[in-house]
């Protein structure tokens, strides 16, 4: 490819990207007008909700966005691994939930100094999430159950188990949540203004950096990419596909467990039903948009966190329907996917840059067990 054609393609990609954002904004504005509100006011309230005010950054509101971004990024980091390996880890929600349950168990049953207690809770959550994901992996490699079906079942099991614990053995008489955790078991905010856990933020940055390097700069990362494109070919090239499936799933579960621990040890301070809150599914969406381009995950995840975080202010100040933020998010995703499609078509090749998880699964599994 010549330098000028490369530049041309980049310009084309940029143009299509800008056009998709413009169309998204236009559609969003039309919907807002249709429900009788002012798009400008909606924009103002969302930016206020994020913390961007004319007088500067409102740290309290900004920390709300960051606090949603942290568990979302843990999940995205894990999903980058499974996505690269060609796995649809739909079970990520259940892995978060089971991680939250494990962190809760330690928070309630173990009494140690905070410096040991909190890391132990997070480790328990991570290992719990890894265990839950590995079960789905085993169902796939040994039982021939596709990870989507296995994942959905494991999600439900994790939710049912947590609700049983909350309304039964761990109940707070009322059955809606466990009793609040002790102060020394919690992740604490940096300050009363910037209410973000430094431990969670730093850990998130470290694991993302580690996974990014592992995926882009190691032989193992290359193996995952190879099996992501075709498990059969990877197997023929000597890649230990089954081991990698289990490892990728467990790693993703590990991250999801960490996300679950942040939800119970920081966001809520106790265990509640459905505490994973769809963050796992949102993570899938983010990774679907980024493909395997890991460096895009943090800004896209932050963008989603900002839209959702800003919508709290929007809902209260303008009393708009709560689903509006979801509609805006949906339009943006649709436009980005459409733009990807258009770009691929204009280039004259298949649009999907990301691997296609689990293509021709039966054939590959026959080969694996072969």
């Amino acid at each position, binding site marked *: 490819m010549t330098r000028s054609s490369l530049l041309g393609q980049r310009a084309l990609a940029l143009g299509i990207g800008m056009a998709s954002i413009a169309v998204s904004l236009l559609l969003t504005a039309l919907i807002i007008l249709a429900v009788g509100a002012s798009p400008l006011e909606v924009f103002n309230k969302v930016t206020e909700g994020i913390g961007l005010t004319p007088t500067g950054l409102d740290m309290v509101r900004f920390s*709300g966005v960051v606090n949603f971004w942290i568990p979302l990024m843990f999940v995205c980091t894990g999903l980058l691994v499974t996505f690269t390996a060609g796995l649809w880890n739909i079970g990520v929600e259940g892995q978060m939930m089971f991680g939250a349950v494990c962190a809760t168990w330690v928070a309630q049953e173990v009494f140690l100094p905070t410096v040991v207690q909190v890391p132990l809770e997070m480790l328990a959550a991570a290992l719990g999430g890894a265990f839950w994901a590995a079960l789905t992996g085993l169902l796939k490699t040994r039982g021939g159950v596709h990870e989507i079906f296995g994942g959905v079942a494991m999600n439900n099991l994790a939710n049912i188990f947590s609700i049983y614990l909350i*309304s039964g053995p761990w109940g707070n008489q009322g*059955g809606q949540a466990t009793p609040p955790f002790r102060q020394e078991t919690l992740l604490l905010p940096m300050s009363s203004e910037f209410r973000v856990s430094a431990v969670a933020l730093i850990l998130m940055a470290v694991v993302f950096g580690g996974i990014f390097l592992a995926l882009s700069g190691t032989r193992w990362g290359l193996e995952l990419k190879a099996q992501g494109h075709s498990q059969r070919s990877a197997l023929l090239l000597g890649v230990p596909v089954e081991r990698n499936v289990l490892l990728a799933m467990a790693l993703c579960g590990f991250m999801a467990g960490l996300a679950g621990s942040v939800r119970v040890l920081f966001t*809520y301070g106790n265990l509640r039903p459905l505490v*994973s809150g769809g963050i796992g599914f949102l993570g899938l969406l983010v990774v679907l948009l980024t493909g395997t381009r890991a460096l895009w995950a943090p800004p896209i995840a932050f963008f989603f*966190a900002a839209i*959702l975080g800003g*919508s709290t202010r929007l809902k209260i*100040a303008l009393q708009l329907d709560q689903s509006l933020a979801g509609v805006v998010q949906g339009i943006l995703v649709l436009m980005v996917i459409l733009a990807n499609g258009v770009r691929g078509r204009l280039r004259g090749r298949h649009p999907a840059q990301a691997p296609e998880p689990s293509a021709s699964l039966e054939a590959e599994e026959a080969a694996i067990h072969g």
Partner: protein
Amino acid sequence: MARRTAVVLIVAAAMLLAATGGFAQDEEFVFGMVLVGPRNDHGWSEAHYTAGQYVEQQVPGARMVFFESLNPADAPETTLEQVVEEMLAEGAKVIFTTSDEFEEDTLFVAQKYPDTIFINVSGDDALTGEAPANLSNIMGNMELGKQIAGCAAALATETGKLGYLGPLINFETRRLAASVYLGARYCYEHYRGGNPDDLSMTVTWIGFWFNIPGVTLDPTEETQRFFDGGADVVISGIDTTEALVVAGQRAAEGAKVWAIPYDYEGACAGAPAVCLGVPYFNWGPAYVQVVEAVKNGTYEQFWHWNPPYFEDISDNDKTAVGWVNGDALTEEQAAQLDEFIAMLAETDPGVLTADNIDDEGKQIGLWVGPLALQDGTVLAEEGEIVPPRSVWYLEQLLQGMTGDSSAQ
């Protein structure tokens, strides 16, 4: 001269009007309403939202700001603390948190914002003494409404088998299910001439306040199961109307079945022909009282368990718990139900508060012995009134009921 006199008169009149408040603008008074579900759920949350609108009509200058579906699944990006802070930014002086799911978080925000009044609905922190002075609790005495529902079910049943669709298991849900049972037994015996021990009531707990596919039991399937098992009346204790919908479908196929929904005055509309009636919460009058007290600076901490207004149980300017007869109730049954309600009115406990809940003689309708808990423990001897506090903190279902008393 005459013109000057006229001007003087007009100015004087204007000053007089201004002094008496005639020209005074009603100052805006913002209150917050935090809902656990959608504001149009035809159930629990809609009843609160409607009450907020009632406050706006009744209290001059009152303006509601609300946040709906605040729960980890529907609003994972936000917490009660963040919602409260946004409401404070809008100028809210009093905030209603309308679920026991918010109980712990309300305690936290009340401690953090001592100048704002918080009302947690259905909680007990102001009863136990845990709450700071700016946190109070309101609940409607739905136990009386549920006794009426139980009576209606007993008047209609032909098989003598009732099904109760319960949410999750806690003090509140146990005492409500048990209240239905008490009402049903009484009316089966007194109006139907039956032996109350022949009347069966099975409680199925679906696991949560509404259906979560794959997580809770499916209320539609459970209602089908009740009818398949021979029950002909299903009473709902959950936030949504599946019991009524299924009963409507069964009736359309020719079955003689009925249902009693819950929470919201208009709930029968889903299938009026099979609806025996609905016990509903009417939060408006209590909310008006709170908003006016805070506005006038006369607020004092309270814990209120508010009764129905028995003189006219469906007077929404006065009652805290209402009952509407359904289309499926015959004239004779409606008359018997009126008689039953009049009987309940004779033991009206009034507003139960932290100060009077332990007073002797306070009786919640049919909560009188002989009564035993499911494991046989005596709750009240013959003729003994069950103290309201023991009803509030009911440890088990009652003897004779079928169903789990705890999740363990």
